[in-house]
């Protein structure tokens, strides 16, 4: 399955867990639990990925090529865990989603429906 040639905008909007995983991963390689933790930290504990959703999402994202399994960065990492990183396609999709959201936010701001400073 090679969805990479397509326009990333075709798969938008992303479901929140997918976007959250992409954001949490960034340019790092990480395993599931680390993704949960990172995401919680990035959102200052206001958002949480639950394990069931997280692993189901990871499996689907790996299938569709948004992320891929990789060897862990640190040499002493836990071998029993699967590590993931964002593919270039995933990166493009995440950027497109960000762009879509920025647009929406601008619209919201213009209508006075966005928080100050957004």
């Amino acid at each position, binding site marked *: 399955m090679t969805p990479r040639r397509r326009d990333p905008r075709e798969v938008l909007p992303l479901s929140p867990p*997918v976007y959250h995983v992409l954001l949490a991963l960034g340019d790092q390689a990480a395993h599931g*639990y680390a993704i949960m933790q990172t995401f919680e930290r990035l959102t200052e504990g206001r958002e949480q990925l*639950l*394990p*069931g959703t997280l692993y189901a999402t990871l*499996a*689907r994202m790996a299938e*569709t090529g948004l992320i891929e399994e990789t060897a862990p960065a640190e040499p002493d990492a836990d071998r029993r865990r*699967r590590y993931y990183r964002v593919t270039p396609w995933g990166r493009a999709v995440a950027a497109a989603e960000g762009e879509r959201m920025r647009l929406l936010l601008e619209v919201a701001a213009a209508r006075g429906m966005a928080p100050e400073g957004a």
Partner: protein
Amino acid sequence: MSGRPIRAAARVLFRVAVRSFPRAFRRAHGGEMVEAFDRSLARAMERAGVRAGLRFAIRSAGDAVRQGWKERTRGAPPRGHGGGTGHDQGRAGRMMRGLATDVRLALRTLRKNPGFTAAATLVLALGIGANTTVFSALRAALLAPPPYPDPERLVFADLTLVRPGTSGAETMAWSYPKYRVLAEAEGRMIDPLAGYASRNVTLTEAGPPTRINVEVVSPGYFGLLGADPVLGREFTAGEADASDPPAVAVLSHELWRGRFSGEPSVLGGRVVLNGRALTVVGVAPPGFRGLTATAEAWIPLAAAGEVISPFMVRGAQAHWMRIVGRLREGATFEGAREQMRVLGDAVAEAHPLDEPGGEFSGTARRFEDVRVNEGARAAVLLLSVAAGLVLLVACANLSALLLTRARRRAHDGAVRLAMGASRWRLVRASLAESATLAMLGGGVGLALAVWGTRAMAAAWPRQFLGSGDGELRVVSVEALGLDRSVLAFGLAATAATIALFGLAPALRASRSDLASRLKDGGGGSRRADRVLGLDARAVLVGAQVALALVLLIGAGLVGGSMRRLLGVDVGFDPRNLLTFQYAIPRESAWQDDLAGFHEAFIERIERLPGVEGVALGTPPLVGHWSITLVNEIEGRDPIPQGEGPPIGVNIVAPGYFDVLGIPLLRGRFFDSSDGGDAAPTVILDRRAAETLFPGGEAVGRHVALGISEEGKERLARVVGVVGDVLYQAPDREAIPEAFYALREFPLSAGSLSVRTSGEPLDLVPAVREALARMDPSMPLFSISSMDDVAARATGDRRVVLSLLALFAFVTVLLAATGTWGIVSYAVADRRRELALRIALGAGNARIVKSVLGQSLVAGVLGLVAGLGGAWAWGRLLDAFLYRTSPRDPAAFAAGAALLLGVVLLASWLPARRATRVDPVEALKAE
């Protein structure tokens, strides 16, 4: 409740939820998912407390179920974009969403009624917790396959002895020569087979001297049990020859790691047991401790003669080992058992019984039938039934509770029906509420079970659940716990509960007579739920009373037995006694003066601070030192060989009776004149004196017992008669006892009972040091306080009694709240009518009677049914009763009276409120 059981229960809950994912997915991600959950849970609990953790667990479990379901229904190849947005269509999806709505609704309703929800959850948790806990014991003891490969093909090859005049054959241990006959038989269906027995030996060198258990086993023992050594080898067929005793041993993994630092070089090295050096040829796999579950090392059968006693390999009538084997390919158990009869006869022919009248034969038993003793089997079955009754009572209680609620909400239901909701929809909503409650109760119940199994493992005496026949210990108390099957059972119990308590209210919800409900206002029609002319809830209360009475009478019967057992006169003063044993090694210089050693050691102990007296000799309650037969009694006809009455024998030092508080009835105690070269003397207890010299004076007469050695005067003169002492557990039949002086029979091992002024076990270090001063190679073992010994003697009953009592208490409480509930409801329901009656001048007694009627009829019917139930289940209790009939009228009467009192009180308290109805208020309120 602390966080740990909650955490354990939450983990269990999440694991179950994860099962909704397809298997392949679980294989790939399941482990990580659970780990991530576990760590997040720990963090949440640490940061925000147990409640936050619980919230996280419930959310995560729900989320996992949803995602797992999605994953299962996805089926089709993955869609092009990255996220499943959950637009699953079709029946399954719609159903799931409908269910989710129902559950959400139910949760909202339950949250709005915290009192009801808490009560219902607690009732269910008690029922499910009790059952899951007891099931873990049931599984460990009777259901789980033994931890060996192909356990269903494992069998015991038994030697049996039929004595004339007795019915049935007695199962015997094998002697080495008899084992050889069986092992060398051609064409056996039980092949391979292996003999084993456990013995206590002294381990010296490479550390302080200690007593350890070894198993004496045949070559092939390890292979038979699928426990091939991890290092080296097991015994070879060549090491089975007793004429050339093999000096080899296999070590347990734990002994190797502990005492031999886990060095592979241990192979070929030596281990010293009972002073014999043996070559280590192998190390057993970790955790393997043999069929007796206590072995630290193994030696070949043929070496037992060298290491333990020559008699073990030479004596054809020295029966000491059991034989376990495997059915050969194609052989059936029945065939093997038949063949064992023939082989047993061949063994009997080769080594016939040397006393007249007995006949050896053989048989076979399945391994699974032997693994726990009858007492354990009976206990587990009894408790399973009892726990089942608790769950039934819980269901009945809850059902009544839900019916009451359903009645109060009948009006809501009618309104919903009128607005066009389908009846099915109402049934579903009601079922969803029951199911949600059951889930809550099940969750809390599992947490209770985590705690319960731990408590049970701690309370269950080790020797009880652990001991099967023939020293077998396949079931360990440590194995009690929540595993997959116990969990599945807990969930099944929960599902059964939903069906049991949820169905009646659900059906009621659908059976709504619209017009009358709407007209009826809030109260609901009283004619609705009737069974045999009685209110359905009254019937449910009656059922609770009946079941509670069954448990109450059971607890009363076992409790009475326990009281009787504890009240048995043991014949000595068990307070503040420390007991222990020691053994004088064969190579010790003291071997030439054994009595001298004992006396010197006693003197040392007597000088220790806090010691009030020292008694040498087997202490009471731990079992007889030896049981032999009476051979000759002065003034009586000669007794044919082997036909005298059995008698226990104890070897004691002067002071034994005094220190233990055993009274002298006639004659004198031993003193320094007894034993040695003097004419043999003996002291009898009253039972023995009456058995041997009925109606006459025993002191001064002579008697010969089976203990007499060659070259000694056979007849011993009776010098004293002492009070009866129990050497076995009080529920066993007492055997008469005879005492010889230590100087008469110097032993190479000693049992001391030390009377202390303080806590007996505090003395142990000082005793250890005293022994080390005399000989540093001598081990001290079997250290125990007499209190513990006495507790062990009633141990299995204690566990059964405490659980039965707990179950009985819970069910009586439930029956009481059930009764209370129905009467309170009757009062509230009939306010208007009662107010009217009071206004018209009805007296208090009349008012109370009118609201009590139903509950009293139900209660009394319940009591009658309960008496019948208790009558029927007596057989299950029989194994735990001591001098108590399972149909003891006193216990029945007491149980019924107590429960009647509870029912009356629980009815009367709310009924009283009926008389306080203020007619003006009540009538105005309409």
